[in-house]
Structure formats: C-alpha cells, structure tokens
C-alpha cells in the first residue's frame, strides 16, 4: 500500500472520536443533500401523476372526422392515441408521444398536411399539455423546460450544500490542526506538498466510504419521515385519507437521485479536504513543527465573562477564542440554526393567519354561498328551499337576500337601482351594532334603509326625516298554469314588454357608514317579509331564486367530516339548494396545506439544528481532548473538578450566548421587515382608501407578527445547545480524570490501535445478515400462511388439484354430475375467487348443467408458473387441466371480463370443442390500439405500470399484503351484503397470493394478446351471448346505487347519497356516452364475433354473481336451450 494510504487509515483508527465526528458530519450533510434530491423526485412524480390524472395526453385535437382521427392516431412518433366522440359528433383525438418530436410546431404542420386537418390547427382547436410534455421530455421546448427546472433545483440544492460545507470543513480542519506538527515532520523528511494533500484526501475518501452510504440511508429515512409528517399533518386530508393520498403522491426512491446525491456529497467532501490540505502545506515545515496548534498570540485583558464569573470566566473566554476562525464558524452555524428554528414556524403561522384573515375579510365568516332555488313549473318556491336549508340542522345563521331591480326616474332618464330584501340574520350581519333602524321596525313599517354608497344618498335629505323614493318596477305577469320548465329565461327576454308599476319606497333611515366592501351591496335594503308582501304586485308572478349565505353549524376547527356531510347534503338536495361557493372547503384546504407546510419546515429545522449541534459538540470535545495536559496542569496547581466543570460550562456559554444574541438581533430585524412588507402589501393591494377606520385597523392587525414567541424559541434553542455542550464537556472531563495526573501532564500522544479493525467489513456482513434473516422470515411466513389457507380452502371443498402443463391447476366443479352442458367459467383479470362468488349463479345453472371453474396459473390456489402467459399458453393449460380432471369437450365457455379473450381464442383455434360462448361483460377490442384511457389515470405509462406491478409482486412475495392496512378507517366491503362471512373469508384468502409471476406475465401480455386477437378475429357461427353492464336507463343507475347502499350498510357505514337525485343526475350526465359506446364500440365488436346476441343488464361489472344473478342465469338457460338444445 502506498504510504499515504497507510498513514490515512492509521490516523482514522488512531483518532476514533475525531473520525467518528467527521463521519457523522459527512453523514448529516449527505443526508440533507439526499433528502433534497429525493423530495425533488417525489414532487416531480406527484406532478406527473397529477398531470396524468387530469390530462393524460400530450396533445388533444378537436373537431376531426373519423378518418382524420384514425390517421392522426397512427401518425409518426405517436405511441398511443385514442379517440373520443364529442356531443356534436366530431371526434377528438388524444395523443401520447413515444419519443422526441423535435420542434412541435413543425410536427404539427406536418401532421396537419398528412391528415388534411388544417382547420383544426388554424383555428386553435388543439391543446398541448405543456406540463406533461415537460415531464416526459417531449419536444424541444419540453426538454428545455425540464432541464431548466432541474437546473434551478440543482443550483438551489448546491447552494444549500454550500452551507453544509461549514460543517464538513470544520470537521476536517479540527482533525488536521491536531496533526499539523506531524505534517511538518513529514515534510521535513521529504514529503512533497502533493503527498501531504493526498494523505488528507485519502483519509477523507475513506471516511466517505462509510459516511456516504449511511448518509444516503439517513437521507431516505429523513425524506420519508418528512413525507409522512407532511401527509399526516394535513395534506392527506385533502385527498380524503392517508392511503388515498399515498396513491396520488407516492413516495418513490429514484436511484438516479441517490447517485446524484452521493456524487455531490463525495465531491463536496473531497473539495473540503483538498482545501484544508492546501492550507496546511502553505506553512513552512519548521513553522508547523515548532508552532504548537494551541499557541495563543493575543488575549483580551478584560472580558465580560471575567467580570461575571471571575478567573474561571477569564480563562474560559480566552480559551474559546483561541482559534478565531473556529469560534466564528461555530457561532455562525449555531446562529443560523437557531434563527431558522425561531423564525420559520413563526413566519408560517403569520402567513397562515394573514391568508385566513384575508379570506374571512372578503367572505365574512360565511362558510357556504349559494342559491335557494325555485322551480316555477313544479310550483316549488324559494322559501321552501330556504326552509329545507334551515331544517337540515347542519347550518346556523342562515342569511338570505333577494335582489330585485327597480328604476328611478330623473326627468327623462331612468336609473337602475338594486333593492335587496334581506332576512334578519343578513340584516344584522350587514350593520352589526350600528343598525340605523331595527329589523322589527323595518318589517312593521315596510320601509327601507339607504346605503350611503347609493347614488341617491346625496339627493335624499336625511336629517332623520322619513323620505320617500319614487321608483318604477317592471311587472311581468304570466298565467301560472302555463308556466313550463325553462320558461323563466324566455319571459325574462320579454322584459321589455312588461308593464310599469310605480311604487313608493319609504326610506326609514340611512346607514351611518358605508357597508364593508365584501358584503352584499344594495343601495336600498328592505326586509324579506316586506318582499313577500309586495312581490306579487310589484315584481312578477314568477318566483325567483334567493341567495343564501350560511355558516356551518359545527363550528370547531375546519375538519373533513363536517365538510363531507355538508357537501353530501348539498349534492343530494341540489334541486332545492345549489351551492355556488364552498368557502369552508377553501379555508379547510388552506388550513391543511399550511399545516403540512409547517410540519415539513419543522422537520427541516430539526435537521439544520442537528448539523449545528454536531459542530458544537465536535469543537467542545476536541478542545478538551487537545488541552489534556493543560487541564491536568490546572488540576495539579489546585483547581477542583467543580471549578473545571464550571470553566467548561462558561466556554460553552461563549458559543451559545454569542449565537443567541446575534440570532435575536437578526430575528427582530427579519420580523420587523416582514411586518413592514405585509403592511405595505395590504395598503397597496387591498385598501382603497374608502374603508372605515375600524376596517383598516383590523386589516393592519392581521399583519402583526408575534415577537415574543421567536425570542422564547431562541432562548430554548440556545439553552438546549448549551446543555448538550455541557454534558459533552462533563463526559470528556470525567474520562480524562480516570488517567493519572502525571501521565496527563506529560501529555503522551495519541494511542493508535494496530489491531486490524474490520469494523466496516463486519458491519456490512451484520447488516446483510440481518436483511437476509428478515427476508427469509417473511418468506417462510408467507409460504406457511399460503399452505394454511389452502387447507382451509380444501376443507371448504373448493380444492381439486390436477396436472396441467408443468404446474398443478385447481379445477373446481359443481352442479349436476353429467349435466346437459359443461359450462367452463373463465375468470376475469385478477379474479381469484370466481368459484366462490358465483355461488348463486351456479345454484341456478347447476340444476341441469355441470359447472367447471379451472383457475389458470397464478390464480386462486393453482400453482404459479414462470412461463409466458400468452393466449395460446393459457388456453392449452386450460385444455390439459380440464382433460385431466375428467371433463371432455364440447364446452360452453363462460368468460367474465378478460376471460372472454381466452374464450374467443379458444373458439377460433378449436371450434369443434366449443358449443357456445357466453360473455359476462367481456372485454371488447377497441378499434384502435391504445393504452386504456381509464388505466392511464392509474398508471401514466407502461413502464410505470410494470414498475408498480413488480413492486406489488415483491410485496406479495414477502407477505407484506397480509399486514393490516394503514388507515384505521373502515371501508365498504364489496359484496358484504350478499355473501356470508365464511364466503368473504374464503374470498380474502384467494386474493392474498394474487400477485403471482403468471399474473404479472398475463398483465404484460395484454397488449400483445389484444393485437393477436384483432388480427385473427373473424365472424364464426358458434352461438354467442353477450351480457353488457352499461347502463341503459335511470333505473339501472338507481338499482346499482341501492346495491351499493346495501354493501355500505352491511359494512357499518352510512350511505349518505340521496339515491333519487344522484341517479337522476348521473344518468343525465352520462347517458349520451353510453349510447355512443353501444353504437360505435360494442356493436362493431359483436359483429366481428359473429352470431352474437346482446343482452343489457345495466349495473356492476360483477353483476352476474353479485347483483342480478337470477336474471342472468335464466337468460343463459334460455339461450342454451334455444341454440344448442
């Protein structure tokens, strides 16, 4: 080994404490860098997922013809495309590009030429999804933006790393200073400066070997901790639950980011060591040898500490300042961390208060805005809707107002004036304590109040005298029995034909002050009761909607449950009360977002504090270690232990005290500055000069920044640092005391340990061993659990293993022994419980037929198989298994969902074996190949999907699926109302080994399978029956919701939707798209199959076993009787 390496490794082992500190410093620095990069990766991923969830395409082009759409979808560079029909009959094409399209404008022109769709591109009937393009790096601009963002981020991270350099630098500086003399000696023997630098960097790189991987690990842990903290603090609520939030914002560890972090960390450490080395070799060797590191050049005669604490204080003060640079760096690090700790939380609290205050200012304390609807054709009145609002019990302080228009004539001119009729609560909210006249008086006299902002104010003589306003209303009359839906707007258009009615508005008083900006602004205000009295005569026969503002009755902190209750109520009652603004949700979202922000920042604080603390402890302990002989001399003169301890404490105080004072000053400056900025913002943006004094004061008050709390925090942080430093000193001093006094005075040097320490090797082996043991344990548990489950399955009578092609297949059969037909059930994708859930269906069908349910490889309790699960393979496996189980052809194939693929293939390849095919909502072949647009919402791209599948496979392989889930909240169990507890338990058991290798292979093969089928699909004569679950009418939707409700209630949950209205709403919304799917996608497919009858049973995808099994069974029996006898 080169001697530099030898020396480096010896030094590391000789100065264990110092090396340990350096390692920890590097570790923390690398951890912080890693955390940065990982969170970048997570954020980018989240943005990508969010983007895919909302707009899963790169380019959307509207208004195309069918041919144009097809052509566009198969254009160059397009990986996936799909077409959607718009309401006007045109086609919208959605495209996902697979690789770079270069300049996107050029590509577009080219494509436009090719498909002859100039109009669309000329008229901007296209939409580039810039976010997604940037994330995927498509197109020149996309690539550039992605690079830009990464650069910005990288620069920020490097800047942050820069401050971490303080820690690493100090650690190296300390260890090198101690060995300055040695380096001098080495140089005097003949080491070149490069060799000295090489020794230091060699040491640094060796420490990196340990510290960087640990730092990466710590970084991952920190990042995950922040992720969890942020989610639980509030972000998860925005997604309705932790598990849902984790799906939308997954925490992934991107290996690329880890590499970048490791590289940055290592380079940083290297630069630091190199810098220290260069500084050391600047000295002439003799200087280094003779000058002892602790030589003092100058001391201050009188110090503050000396004054306060006597001689101990004097010595302590001088000691601390022995090395100016080190002192400054430590104080700096402490100051930064204390300041950050004190400020960040305070500032975020202030910001939150400001934001919420602003919202409340504009919206008052209202939670919900909306309309109490009337329906003139059905005779529903707005007052009834308002009453429903009151009766719901969910809201308090319901304020109502109805705006009406009158005209004021001035000579020949007519000026429009809005009169607002308000209820008591609204009136009181408007005027507060300053009511010009009481509401009761208003009602009694039928009079009105004038707003000073009204243009009429100046004209009216309001020295407390009652005045009158001559106005004109437009009166519209229409026979009530002829009112039809939608007529309101027609009649409104005929406004001009209304009659004029002259009315007199008695003005009772004028408001003293202008009403606040945000409130409803009506120049003239009257009581709601007055409106009820005059409306038929003054305004029109038609009822009009009322406005409402209300506050949530449960006025605790904004919480998700109350929000959901309110929203559900509005959803179910949208015919009467329509919600237009949900301020409660806004405030709740703000509150939750800021809460999570605070949590995240708090974590960051902890890390920064950790770094500063390590620095402090390093310096304190090294200081004591270096002055071993000095301290021993003091003891030999007669200093007691207590006095020595006291000295150490005061030394720590030097650091922490200085840091606390500086931090306090900085904090105050920043706080004052923030206040000024906030105030300027408010003044500049929000105040228009016309608000009342009270308002201005209230607004200004919101910007007040708490000054006391940060100071308290600074004190707390400084005291913590002080305590840590004192404890370390005490420990070091006590350790030194165990050696004899004379030894210490003589100052024997470092005691290196020549035993070959295999610490690194041993720890790696131990870690690897631990990981292996845990993995093995989990695997054993999983296998044991599987075997146990299989025994239960057997006991329940479902197990019947037979040989298939290289694996054992479970072939369950039920029904008649030698039935008329052998009906073979082919399960849908991932349905492991097919035999269990079809109990009802089987009971009916099995009276005269034999039902057979073979589980293909990797499904249920069939063995797993590592062969590629192509269509051909699966069908061959089925055939072999069935034969070996004793079931001969011909078969009637009953394919559910994806199972229909196998049915189709089987029938085309072995037409003689198949009597008939029954499709239970079979997967149909799309006209053009695409990554299913619904799947895209879950998995943005194929590679993402496969990555997720692989993860699921590993989770399952190690039995992690069997661990209880994160959310403690109860969820609705599908089928809970229909199946018994035993059946549900068996069902669960079959799902545990779901993620098998065969299943993964099947998933991967899906695109290929689709292609093959499409190539080979041709009409055949074999009779086919297709059950479609698409809704055909509102009744279908309602039945499905009833079915859902049963499950909810069986699961012990409340089904909060109003089925009537919800079903109506959903059918109204989606009817046309079902229609389109029937006509343009399903029908062509059935034609391609040939001799296929379509039966619609609208409802759930699992409807055959769950919801309408009787109906289905009967239809099947009839069909079989008719076609095959």
């Amino acid at each position, binding site marked *: 080994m080169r001697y530099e390496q030898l020396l480096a490794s010896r*030094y590391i082992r000789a100065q264990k404490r110092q090396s340990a500190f350096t390692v920890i410093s590097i570790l923390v620095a690398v951890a912080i860098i890693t955390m940065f990069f990982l969170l970048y990766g997570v954020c980018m991923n989240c943005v990508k997922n969010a983007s895919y969830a909302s707009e899963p395409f790169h380019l959307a082009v509207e208004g195309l013809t069918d041919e144009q759409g097809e052509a566009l979808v198969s254009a160059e560079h397009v990986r996936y495309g799909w077409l959607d029909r718009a309401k006007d009959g045109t086609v919208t094409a959605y495209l996902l590009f697979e690789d770079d399209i270069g300049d996107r404008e050029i590509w577009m022109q080219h494509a436009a030429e090719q498909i002859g769709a100039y109009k669309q591109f000329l008229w901007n009937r296209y939409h580039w999804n810039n976010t997604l393009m940037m994330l995927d790096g498509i197109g020149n601009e996309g690539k550039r933006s992605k690079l830009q963002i990464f650069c910005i981020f990288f620069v920020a991270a490097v800047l942050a790393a820069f401050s971490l350099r303080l820690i690493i630098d100090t650690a190296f500086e300390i260890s090198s200073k101690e060995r300055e003399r040695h380096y001098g000696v080495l140089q005097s023997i003949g080491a070149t400066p490069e060799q000295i630098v090489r020794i230091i960097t060699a040491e640094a790189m060796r420490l990196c070997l340990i510290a960087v991987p640990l730092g990466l690990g710590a970084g991952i842990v920190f990042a995950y901790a922040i992720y969890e903290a942020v989610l639980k603090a509030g972000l998860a609520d925005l997604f309705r639950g932790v598990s849902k939030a984790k799906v939308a914002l997954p925490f992934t560890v991107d290996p690329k980011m880890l590499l970048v972090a490791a590289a940055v960390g290592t380079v940083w450490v290297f630069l630091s060591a190199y810098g220290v080395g260069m500084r050391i070799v600047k000295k*002439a060797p003799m200087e280094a040898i003779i000058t002892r590191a602790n030589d003092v050049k100058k001391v201050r005669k009188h110090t503050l500490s000396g004054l306060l604490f006597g001689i101990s204080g004097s010595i302590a003060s001088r000691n601390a300042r022995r090395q100016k640079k080190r002192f400054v760096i430590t104080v700096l690090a402490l100051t930064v961390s204390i300041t950050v700790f004190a400020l960040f939380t305070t500032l975020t609290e202030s910001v939150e208060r400001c934001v919420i205050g602003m919202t409340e200012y504009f919206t008052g304390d209202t939670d919900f805005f909306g309309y109490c609807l009337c329906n003139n054709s059905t005779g529903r009145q707005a007052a009834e809707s308002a009453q429903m609002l009151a009766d719901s019990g969910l809201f308090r302080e319901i304020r109502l107002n109805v705006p009406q228009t009158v005209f004021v004539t001035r000579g020949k001119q007519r000026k429009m004036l809005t009169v607002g009729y308000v209820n008591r609560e609204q009136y009181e909210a408007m005027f507060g304590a300053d009511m010009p006249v009481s509401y009761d008086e208003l009602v009694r006299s039928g009079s009105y109040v004038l707003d000073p902002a009204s243009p009429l104010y100046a004209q009216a003589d309001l020295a407390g005298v009652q005045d009158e306003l001559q106005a004109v209303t437009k009166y519209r009359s229409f026979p009530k029995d002829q009112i039809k839906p939608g007529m309101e707007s027609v009649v409104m258009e005929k406004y001009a034909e209304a009659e004029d009615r002259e009315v007199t508005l008695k003005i009772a008083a004028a408001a003293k002050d202008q009403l606040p900006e945000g409130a409803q602004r009506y120049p003239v205000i009257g009581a709601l009761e007055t409106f009820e009295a005059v409306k038929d005569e003054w305004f029109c026969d038609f009822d009009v909607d009322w406005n409402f503002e209300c506050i949530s009755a449960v006025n605790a902190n904004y919480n998700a449950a109350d929000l959901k209750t309110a929203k559900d109520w509005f959803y179910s009652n949208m015919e009467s009360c329509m919600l237009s603004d949900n301020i409660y949700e806004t405030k709740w979202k703000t509150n939750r977002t800021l809460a999570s922000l605070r949590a995240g920042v708090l974590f960051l604080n902890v890390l920064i504090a950790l770094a500063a603390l390590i620095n402090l402890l390093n310096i304190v302990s090294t200081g004591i270690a270096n002055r071993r002989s000095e301290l021993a001399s003091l003891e030999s003169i007669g200093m007691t232990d207590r006095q020595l301890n006291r000295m150490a404490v005061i030394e720590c105080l030097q650091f922490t005290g200085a840091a606390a004072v500086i931090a306090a000053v900085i904090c105050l400056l920043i706080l004052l500055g923030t206040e000024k900025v906030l105030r300027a913002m408010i003044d500049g943006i929000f105040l228009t000069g016309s608000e009342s004094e009270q308002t201005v004061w209230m607004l200004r008050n919101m910007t007040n920044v708490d000054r006391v709390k940060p100071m308290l925090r600074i004190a707390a942080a400084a005291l913590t640092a002080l305590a840590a430093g004192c404890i370390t000193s005490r420990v070091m001093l006590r350790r030194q005391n165990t050696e004899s006094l004379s030894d210490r005075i003589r100052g*024997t040097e470092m005691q290196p340990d*020549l035993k070959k320490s295999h610490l690194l090797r041993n720890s790696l082996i131990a870690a690897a061993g631990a990981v292996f043991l845990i993995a093995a344990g989990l695997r054993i548990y999983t296998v044991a659990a599987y075997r146990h489950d299989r025994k239960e399955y057997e006991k329940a009578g479902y197990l019947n293993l037979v040989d298939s092609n290289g694996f054992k297949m479970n072939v369950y059969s039920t029904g008649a022994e030698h039935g008329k037909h052998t009906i073979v059930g082919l399960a849908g994708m991932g349905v492991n419980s097919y035999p269990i859930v079809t109990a009802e269906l089987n009971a009916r069908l099995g009276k005269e037929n034999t039902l057979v349910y073979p589980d293909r490889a990797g499904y249920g309790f069939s063995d797993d198989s590592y062969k590629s699960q192509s269509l051909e393979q699966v069908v061959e496996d089925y055939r072999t298994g069935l034969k070996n189980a004793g079931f001969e052809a011909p078969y009637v194939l009953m394919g559910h969902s994806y199972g229909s693929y196998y049915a189709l293939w089987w029938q085309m390849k072995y037409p003689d074996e198949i009597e008939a095919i029954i499709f239970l909502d079979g997967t149909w072949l799309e006209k053009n190949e695409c990554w299913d647009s619904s799947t895209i919402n879950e998995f943005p791209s194929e590679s993402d999907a496969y990555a997720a599948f692989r993860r699921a496979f590993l989770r399952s392989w190690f039995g992690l699926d069997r661990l209880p889930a994160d959310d403690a909240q109860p969820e609705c169990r599908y089928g809970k109302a229909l199946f018994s507890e035993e059946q549900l338990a068996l069902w669960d058991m079959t799902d545990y080994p779901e993620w098998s290798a065969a299943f993964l292979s099947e998933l991967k093969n899906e695109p290929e399978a689709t292609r093959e089928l499409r190539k080979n699909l041709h009409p055949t004569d074999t009779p086919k029956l297709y059950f479609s679950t698409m809704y055909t009418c509102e009744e279908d939707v309602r039945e499905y919701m009833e079915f859902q409700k049963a499950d909810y209630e069986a699961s012990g949950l409340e089904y909060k939707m109003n089925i009537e209205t919800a079903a109506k709403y959903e059918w109204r919304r989606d009817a046309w798209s079902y229609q389109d799917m029937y006509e343009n996608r399903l029908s062509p497919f059935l034609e391609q199959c040939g001799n296929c009858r379509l039966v619609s049973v609208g409802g759930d995808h699992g409807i055959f076993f769950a919801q309408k099994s009787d109906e289905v069974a009967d239809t099947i029996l009839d069909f079989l009787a008719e076609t095959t006898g």
Partner: protein
Amino acid sequence: MELLKVENLCKVYGKGENEVRAVDGVSFSVERGQMVAIIGASGSGKSTLLHMIGAVDRPTSGKILIDGQDVFQQNNRELAIFRRRQVGLIYQFYNLIPVLTAEENITLPLLMDGRKPDPAHLERILEMLGLTARRHHLPSQLSGGQQQRVSIGRALFTAPQIILADEPTGNLDSKNSAEIMELFRKSNREMKQTILIITHDENIAEQCDRILVLKDGKIIADEAQAVPSDDRGEGDEQDAL
C-alpha cells in the same frame, strides 16, 4: 571535497524594533566525511542554522550550496525530494509519527519515494540500532532512547549526503548518549557520512572533527580537533557494516 558551503546566511524574525537576527551573516564550508559539532548558548541561532541547511526553513538572505547546487533555487517539490534523499534530520524531540511502527518510521523516506525497502539493509540498520526486537512497536511503546534511535535510523536509512542532528542526546541519559554517539561515529567512519551535530555536551563536541561556535547568530570560533578518528573511546564492539 567540499560538500556543504554556506555563504552569508541570514535569518531575521520580526520587523523594525522587534527585529531578531537569529542568524547573522554566517559563512563556512564542510568537507565530505567530516563530523562537525556546532555549539553555543541558547538562542545563539544553532537550530535555526541547522534547519536552514536542512531546507526546512528559508533564509532571509544568503546561499546554501550542497554538492555545488544552490539549495533554495529549487521549487517546493524539488526541495521536498532534496530533503528526502540528500539530507537526514534528527531532532531533539524525536518527532516520530505516532501511528507508524518503528520499522515503518525508519523506512518512511523510502516509502515516500514509492520504493520498497531492501530487507537486508533494513535488518542491518535495525541491528545496528539494537531495535530488532522492537521493530513492530509503536513510538508510545518505546523508551526515550529507543525512540531517538528510531529517529536516527530514519535519518540513516537512505544514506543521505549529510546528516543534521539537533541535540540528539539532549533527552537521554549518559548510557544512551554514549550509544548514540557510537552510532554516529560508526556511520561517519564506515560510511563516510558527513554529520553536523548541535550539542551542549562538551564530551560529544570533543568526539567531532571540528567545532563551530555560534554566538548571537555569528560564528565566533571554528576549531579543528586534533583527535585522530581511530582513537575515540574503547568499546566500539559493534559489528562492521
């Protein structure tokens, strides 16, 4: 043959009022194979002079020529190599590297060259120093005398042109001192090693060919000893190299 030539060497510390002239215009030359003692009171500039000859300190003015080459004309790297191969420095306070064994300390200059030490040569040196049993011990496990011998071994190992010893026996008892001097004499006699020793000890000075006396940074005496080289005390029983 002139090995070392010092011309008007000056070393000044501080400025103005606080100026200290540690070495003030020293000039002399040394032949190859000579053993020279440098004596003088504390603060007379002996160590400073020696350090400059060993290129471990830079003079304020003046020249040092070793084998005709101006030492301080070299750049840092060449100086380092010069120190490695041409010069062997021995200090009063041993200055061993505490994390290396005795053997490793001795061979350190060679290791810096990136060469492997000749095992036979190493054996000889260790035997000559009487350290064979202690070769794998760390400095903390050696007595003062043993540490000094390691230091001497380090200086001798590469057989440099000139050995500079700064109070080599200052920290040792008389027995050890005698042994150390015996080593020097042996090296000087048998390997024609040029040695400069700084010492307070008259006995030691008398054992050298020549005595330089320094006072206040200047040479005030330069006496050649008339003692013939093979007439130095009894008892050099050690094996010939």
